[in-house]
């Protein structure tokens, strides 16, 4: 009889997990080609590993639930599990008293919630999301009339105007929570001007509240890590240019050409 030692079994498990990583890299490239194409292969693997680790932390270890978790990562950002924009995700993922029994059920519930969100907020064929991206792009090009003192109340109104479906879905309290996070993050990142706070908040609303550390969007962290001691206004302008490039890329992914 051939005996397989524990070490050998661990190696086998590791190899199988790696194979699943490969499978997911291929799968996600098909799920969101435009987004995944912007990443180097090593970055793609980083996204998959980050997502698999987070999924495991929430008790998702089966192939179907992990695949769903990774797909939601691409839809809502790598930190969607803690994002106040997706409270249902955190709630479903926290319910793991009996993980072996409930994993598939929890995953199915997560799937249903995600589909509901997509239908209500993004709309059929992402029609509301595309409209919101247009509005955000136009808004970022306009001179700002708000100040840091009135940032929260003014930005709430702007989000209501730019992405009404999302504003309604979140409600004022959650929306303010996201915007406050944006302002705090802008301060942490040394871009605390009105424009800096607006940009960081919009990035969070668009790409998830963890976008500044998200392996899916390495350009954000890379942009913000440059010249950390530079004037916040200069850093904000640099970030704005990158945001505009990315928004154009995103709109192009929907087959929309935006004129300057």
């Amino acid at each position, binding site marked *: 009889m051939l005996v397989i030692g524990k070490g050998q*079994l661990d190696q*086998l*498990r*590791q190899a*199988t*997990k790696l*194979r*699943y990583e*490969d*499978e997911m890299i*291929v*799968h996600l*490239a*098909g*799920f*969101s*080609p*435009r*987004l*995944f*194409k912007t990443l180097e292969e090593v970055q793609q693997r980083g996204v998959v590993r980050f997502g*698999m680790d987070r999924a495991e932390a929430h008790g998702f*270890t*089966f*192939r*179907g*639930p*992990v*695949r*769903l978790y990774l*797909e*939601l990562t*691409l*839809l809502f950002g790598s930190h969607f599990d803690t994002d106040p924009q997706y409270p249902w995700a955190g709630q479903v993922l926290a319910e793991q008293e009996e993980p072996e029994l409930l*994993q*598939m059920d929890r*995953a*199915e519930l*997560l*799937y249903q919630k*995600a*589909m509901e969100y*997509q239908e209500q907020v993004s709309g059929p064929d*992402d029609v509301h*999301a595309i409209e919101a*991206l247009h509005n955000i792009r136009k808004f970022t090009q306009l001179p700002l009339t708000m100040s840091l003192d009135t940032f929260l109340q003014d930005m709430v109104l702007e989000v209501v105007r730019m992405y009404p479906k999302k504003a309604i879905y979140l409600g004022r309290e959650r929306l303010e929570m996201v915007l406050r996070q944006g302002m705090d993050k802008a301060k942490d990142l040394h871009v605390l001007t009105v424009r800096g706070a607006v940009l960081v908040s919009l990035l969070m609303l*668009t*790409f998830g509240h963890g976008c500044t550390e998200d392996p899916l969007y390495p350009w954000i962290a890379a942009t913000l890590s440059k010249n950390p001691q530079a004037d916040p206004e200069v850093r904000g302008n640099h970030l704005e240019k990158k945001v505009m490039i990315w928004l154009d*890329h*995103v709109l192009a*992914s*929907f*087959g929309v050409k935006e004129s300057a």
Partner: protein
Amino acid sequence: MTQKKKPSSPATGIGADTPCNNTETTYSLQDKIKIVELVEVVVHAGKETTQAAGGRKQYINLDASSDPGTPHPEFGRIIRLKARVEWATANVKSLSGQTVYWYSEPGGSNCAKLTGGVKEGFGSGGGAKTSTASTDEKGWTSTVQFYLSRYGGDTFMVAATEDAACKGGLKTGTYEVWRKFWYQVTRASSHTVPAPEKSVAAYKKVYAEMLAAAEVEFAQKDAPAGTFYPGWMVAQGGPDASESVIGGHNWESFCKKFKEEKDKPVKGHLIICQHQWDPAGASALLTVVLNKKKSDELTFNLGGAWNAGIVKPALSGKLVSAGVWSGDGKTGALSDADILIEKGRSALNVVKVLLPAGTPDPTKTPVTVKLKLNYGKFYAGESNKHHMLIVYNGAEKNFNQMVAHEFGHGFGQTPRKGAQPSPLPQHPKQYDNEHGGVGSHCSTDATLVTDPNYPKKRYQNGTCIMFHQVNPSGCKQEFCATCEPYLRLQDFSSLA
């Protein structure tokens, strides 16, 4: 937030409820699928049909929408495919939600230097190397789009497999990247023109098919003024018969003879003439004293150009730009009727003057004549977008080089610095007017020689089709090795 598919239900797919690192069987044999069919999808007039994915020449420069009446799956860079799966063993479960993996196998001789949008890929030019598609309850995947590269001669097979490592599965036949274009010959009915076989062969070598469309003929009686001259008037030693002369003065009339054809969306117009002459302005003023009524040959300075001559009637307008005679205290004007061009003249820039009635008798009183004549310059061919004016006078080698050359210009050859298709480097043999010709050309095998008209020296004896001068003895009647990759990567979707 970028365009994405909808998330998958966690219950779908092989082994969905088994651990990612299961070392035993990730999924039971009963749940294994196999690919049983791989077909090409043809979408036409809103309807979708399928056909065998057997591979073929794919004409990537053509757009199927240009010919809406006929399906053209062989047009464009996209190959649309779908596959069908079955359970590997008897199983009654729905086939919905199974994942099929797609990959491509490039040919061994494909261009390895391509980057960006000109490279092959799933979903877009330069897109992902692999793709996935989910199956419906009958086991059919959604349609997958594979973009061939843009490099003529590249070949690809596409495969669908159940193996996430993208191995094995069913494969299509070989799709080879080609381009196709047509040419319409417009010529005088009296002017027999051969098929440009060497041009066709030159384009075939760079993976482009050059096909003949229906010819258009025109008769002398229907041609605009200035189209037919006796052969001897436009060429030294030419025949008495009328020969076609086309150039700036009548070119537009012939351009209008081009026939648009929906099923030939990239078509060049070869306007074939026996001589290409363009009006070139007025000669230098000639002052001469005549002592007989009909002068001897008078030689005019036509700007020092070797390729200039005087014809009657002028190509356009009047022949006499300025002309007066004076003698015995009298003066008078000279007109076109007073200019004689006789067969056998010693050069194309000489004419005779027959003094008009009313002039003094030059044998008794010398008559001074001051004269400027409008003249033309002759060339070997030129192009303007899809219209190409080509001279054919019986020299087939010249004819073939000119046809291939002018189409080459139409397809962006020889690319100037920065105009070459990415990622190719600057064309190392490209040169401009300063070394000869008009436009951008290729200097392969050419040598620079001293020429007073070219301070930076002139290229001589180039062997590439894109050399600036017809070179019947030296031209190899093909695009040189330097030009070849530029042609193979060039977008042939229009003649610009």
